[in-house]
């Protein structure tokens, strides 16, 4: 059965809640522990970016299916400043703040599908999908 839930992302406590809900979603979809850990960690990175750089936003967690394969998809949205140079932001080690600069690129490696839509003044939307 298809399901989805949308959670607010305003504070670091919200990041913890989103991680928790993603873990439950992956568990419910029958993910193995290592795959659960990967999607939860990827979600943690993007959730924190949404709070820190995006000025807050939301995460929508859903169960998805493709060719008989089940998976978990998380869509993060904010109305923050957006990203001018996505290619640069995706570079390993690049940060405009004080991070390790591995959140976006790491989350991409930890997901099966990764999409980022962003433009200056238009906010940012990142979608992560991992299949079971």
């Amino acid at each position, binding site marked *: 059965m298809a399901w989805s*839930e949308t959670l607010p992302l305003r504070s*670091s406590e919200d990041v*913890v809640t989103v991680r*928790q809900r993603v873990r439950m979603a992956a568990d419910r979809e029958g993910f193995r*522990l290592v795959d659960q850990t*990967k999607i939860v960690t990827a979600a*943690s990175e993007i959730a924190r970016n949404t709070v820190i750089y995006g000025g807050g936003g939301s995460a929508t967690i859903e169960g998805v299916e493709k060719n008989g394969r089940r998976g978990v998809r998380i869509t993060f949205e904010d109305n923050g400043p957006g990203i001018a140079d996505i290619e640069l932001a995706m570079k390993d080690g690049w940060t405009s703040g004080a991070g*390790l600069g591995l959140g976006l690129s*790491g989350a991409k490696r930890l997901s099966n599908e990764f999409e980022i839509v962003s433009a200056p003044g238009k906010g940012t939307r990142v979608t992560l999908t991992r299949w079971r």
Partner: protein
Amino acid sequence: MAQTSTVIPEALLKHEASLLSDWVAKQGKTGPELHKAAREFLGAFREGAQSGSLDSIDGAAWEHAREVLTDFSIEQSRQGVSAVEVATFILSLKEPLFALLQRLYSQQPEIVAREVWNATRAIDQFALHTTSVALKTREELIARQQSEMLELSTPVVKLWDGVLALPLIGTLDSERTQVVMENLLEEIVRSGAGVAIIDITGVPTVDTLVAQHLLKTVAAARLMGAECIISGIRPQIAATIVHLGVDLGDVTTKATLADAFRIALYRNGLQVTARAARNGGAPEPARG
């Protein structure tokens, strides 16, 4: 207890398909899970009514019916369906079942009255059963959530002369993480310890923020003359860190705190060995 004679099993057997579709139609939403549970429950209800009594659903005759509802209730609760909604699912069987009995025995109102009473008792008990399972499932979920939300609270412990340990338990998202790490550094300075073990067994998720806290602490400890060992790196965490692209550099990492402790002792020129087997070994050291 005397077996109450009942026409319910027969009615269920003959009219199962129509009853099932009437019952499912009563639900606000449908889905394969709901349909499957309704079908299985009707079958199990018939079996139970055939061999057991409708007075009480506790006996072995009703085991299958209870199981069907237990599974359904757990599944629904995990998906966020409320206990009331789960109970409503089973209670909504009454209306189509009573309508069926009325239709079948329209000429014998005393049978209808008796059977409606029988069915009510059994169905109410099943509704209570689903409610208690649903509530229990939610309690377990909440307990699990709370354990993940646990605020980081960690004392620095001395394992041996010159060996400190910081067992981290909880999430490292809050401001308190900084305080905990600073405590470790202060303790290193105060005790002059040469080795500090940071154990992350109790940290549910290790992302780049956690990694950054660890790397900063390791670097600061080094400036104070102490080497850190990071322990409690479970296999799934190791795999994830690699994909994140985090480089723990030359930090020593160990799977367990025990492994880390052994290394720490070794670096301090100590070693754990088995007592000699002769004469049952040395006496147990006095407690002090």
